[in-house]
Structures are given as structure tokens and as C-alpha cells.
């Protein structure tokens, strides 16, 4: 087998350009996804069927279909309708960049919502009852107690979802975006060195994942610092 290190060094700057796009996609859709996930989770945790039905269907759809299908439907599917092409949304839906962000955000929001819902329900009943006993309004309870407690509980699981999304973002390459994977595949089309390029791309993904893992570790230490406190001797 022939292995060319040279080709990796030669194309590394291009791969890093691609990696930057991957970071943008994951960061923006990760944040947007979280913003969508929190209200969905609160609705989903509601005991009223009328309120929990919508997030239930939403989560069912986005967890039940492949992300690739979702991206294709948003990018290629929507653009086949003149109604979409003539609408005010077209400047946004025209761009593969925004289509990818929309698909990733909606997808990760579904998984995130389910994680947060589970975290909310894992908060000990007594703590909520304490809020009621103190006369806190519902909104204040959610803002000061429920969301803060849920954040600490959800964090380890949520880091999984973000890591999965980092890797799923490779699907952006199917709609002409030159993210890390798209860039690697374009270089391979020219150099015929798939092993070297995918190895290099894999290492860059690994480095990005390492940074993410570290960030989540630090956040966990801060949010759940009571678990890390030294016991008095």
C-alpha cells in the first residue's frame, strides 16, 4: 500500500478551512437547537395533553426520520415548489448554508428536548413543592429552579448529542457545502488518496471533539460543583 504524508500537509490548510465551516454549522445550529429545545421540553413535561401533544409529534417526526432525508427535503424538496421560490423565505432557503443550519437545528432540538424533558422530570418533587410552599410563581420556579437544576442533570447526556451532531454535520457535504468532509471529498476527487484524506479529516474531527468534551467537562464542574466539593474530614 502506498501512503503519502506529503498530500496531507499540502492540503491541510484547505481541510482547516472546511473545519471552520463545520464549527460554524455546529455552533450556530447547536445554539438555535437549544433555544428551540427548552420550550419544547417544558411543553412536553406538561401534564396537559393539549400542550404536550405538539412537541410529542415534532420529536416523533425528527427522531424517526434520517437527518439525511431531512436535509434533502429542506434543500432539494422545498425548492421544487414555485410557492417557496416566490416567497420571502427564498433568499434564506436558497442558500445551502442556511438549509443545513435549519435541518441541524430542528433535528438536534428534537433530541435535546427529550433529554431536557427527562432532566426536568428527574428533579426531586420536594424541590418543586418547596417553591410552591415559598409562594414562588410558576414562571419564577421555572426560571430559578427547574431550568437550573435541569441544566446540571442534562449536561452529560447533552454533550453526547452535541458530539453526535458534530459528526452528523458531515452530511452538509451532500448539499454542496465544503465542510470538513465536503472538502476532504473534493480533494480526494483530485488526488485519489481517500485513505490519507479521510485519516486527516478524522484527526481534525477528533481534535474538535476533544475541545468539546473538555468544554462540557468544565461546564459540568461548574454547574454541578456541589458534587465535586471536598467532604469535610
Amino acid at each position, binding site marked *: 500500500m502506498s501512503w503519502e504524508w506529503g498530500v496531507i500537509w499540502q492540503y491541510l490548510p484547505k481541510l482547516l478551512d472546511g473545519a471552520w465551516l463545520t464549527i460554524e454549522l455546529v455552533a450556530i445550529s447547536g445554539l438555535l437547537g437549544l433555544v428551540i429545545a427548552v420550550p419544547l421540553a417544558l411543553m412536553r413535561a406538561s401534564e396537559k395533553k393539549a400542550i404536550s401533544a405538539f412537541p410529542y409529534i415534532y420529536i416523533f417526526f425528527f427522531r424517526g426520520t434520517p437527518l439525511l432525508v431531512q436535509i434533502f427535503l429542506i434543500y432539494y424538496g422545498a*425548492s*421544487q415548489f414555485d410557492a417557496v421560490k416566490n416567497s420571502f423565505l427564498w433568499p434564506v432557503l436558497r442558500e445551502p448554508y442556511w438549509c443545513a443550519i435549519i435541518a441541524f437545528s430542528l433535528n438536534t432540538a428534537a433530541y435535546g428536548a427529550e433529554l431536557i424533558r427527562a432532566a426536568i422530570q428527574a428533579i426531586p418533587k420536594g424541590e418543586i413543592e418547596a417553591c410552591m410552599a415559598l409562594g414562588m410563581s410558576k414562571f419564577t420556579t421555572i426560571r430559578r429552579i427547574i431550568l437550573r437544576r435541569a441544566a446540571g442533570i442534562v449536561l452529560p447526556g447533552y454533550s453526547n448529542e452535541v458530539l453526535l451532531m458534530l459528526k452528523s454535520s458531515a452530511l452538509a457535504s451532500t448539499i*454542496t457545502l465544503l465542510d470538513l468532509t465536503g472538502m476532504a471529498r473534493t480533494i480526494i*476527487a483530485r488526488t*485519489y488518496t*481517500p485513505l490519507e484524506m479521510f485519516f486527516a479529516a478524522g484527526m481534525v474531527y477528533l481534535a474538535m471533539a476533544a475541545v468539546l468534551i473538555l468544554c462540557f467537562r468544565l461546564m459540568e464542574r461548574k454547574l454541578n460543583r456541589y458534587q465535586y466539593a471536598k467532604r469535610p474530614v
Partner: protein
Amino acid sequence: MKKLIATAVMLAACVTAPLSMAGEKIRIATEGAYAPFNMMDNQGQLVGFDVDIAKALCAEMKADCEIVAQDWDGIIPGLRARKYDAIIASMSITEERLRVVDFSEKYYANVLAFVGPKGKALDTTKDALKGKTIGAQRATIAGQYLEDNFGNVVNVKLYDTQDNAYLDLASGRLDGIMSDKFPAYDWLRTPEGKGFEFKGADLDIDDHIGIAVRKGDKLAGKFSTAIKAIRANGKYAEINAKYFPFDIY
């Protein structure tokens, strides 16, 4: 002693039997997403010009062939990994590919062309294309020619399949596509392609299409001989006429 001879004979039989059969059985890969050269029909069977040529060549060589579908990106790595023995998938003979595989003589010649929407002028000279968005399939001659010759003036978009590029032409995201001419000719005659037409002049880039085999494999020569034979006996012309009203050799 007798036993020893018997064992030796059996061993020899075991060693030679697969060797003599290996010459007959040829596994051929094609892409299956490049109409009208190779595509899937309604039943999921591989059909098209490449597939017909492959079958005609196998009949000519009296070989037992199996045709498999393989994604374009992995088609050369798959050949080198011995998943199949030949690629008949409208692959251009290029210097870069010749470094990793061998080719038969050409079985047709490709030219490039621009395709754009009817009723919207598209001047295909380099200066006029400045700032336009032009699509092509990734890892193809058209894609590389576009990047190499127009990459500094146009916004190049690369697609995994030609179908996706057509979808995006129809959606209006692309001003035009640079494509191999013959498959585009076929697409323009479909209901989806009816609003589009060739723009500007064809680009003859001396692009020959051959059959790829592993480096040093004698199959290349056998295919070349078989290509000459079907050109001579009219079989090629018969297949050609099924797809195009002009000779593409």
C-alpha cells in the same frame, strides 16, 4: 507412495481449478446514477449504454460477467481493493487515474457542454460568466475542468450526483451546469429537462472514455480487442442507435 501421488494430484487439482476459472468470471462495477450510460430501471436493475456495452463485450470475450453498482467516490478504491475487476462507468482516461489504474482503449469520446434555462441568455465565454453560479458533479471531468478553467471567476458548486445538480438547476440556485454532453442530451429530452437547453459551443477536451482495470491486469488488452470486434461487427452501432442518433465513438 500411491497415497502420496493421489494427494499430490488432488492438491494440483485444487490449485489449478480456481485459476482456470478465474479467467472466465469478471466482476464489473458501474455507478448507476449517470443516465443514459448507467442507471437503475424501475425494477432496480442496472441498465444503460455502459451496461449494454459491458454485456456485449462479455459476450464477445465469452466471459461470465457480473455487473454491480458502486458509488462514484469509492469506485477506484473498490477496484484496487479487488471488490471487482473492471469499471465500465463512463470513466475518462486521465493522467491522474493512469497513475493508479490501467485503461482499455476508448469505447466512446466525451465532450463537455453548458446547460442553462431556456429564455435566459447565458454567454459561456469566461469573462461573461464572471460572478455566475455554475454546478457540476464532484469527481468528474466536467467538475475538474470547471474548477481549473473557470474556478477563479465563477462560483463553483459540486454535487454528489448529476441528478442533484439538475434539481438545483431547476430550483434556480444555479445559472448553469457544466456537464458531459451526452447525458445532458438525454436529460433535455425528459419532462424535467424540457425548460432547459445547451448554451454556447461544445468544449471538445480530447476526453476518451475507457474501461479501468487494476494496474498490470491483462484484462485491459482483452477489452480493447473486444471493443474493436463489436465496432466491426455492428453490435456497437446497434447499441449506440438505441441511445443517440449520432455516433459517439
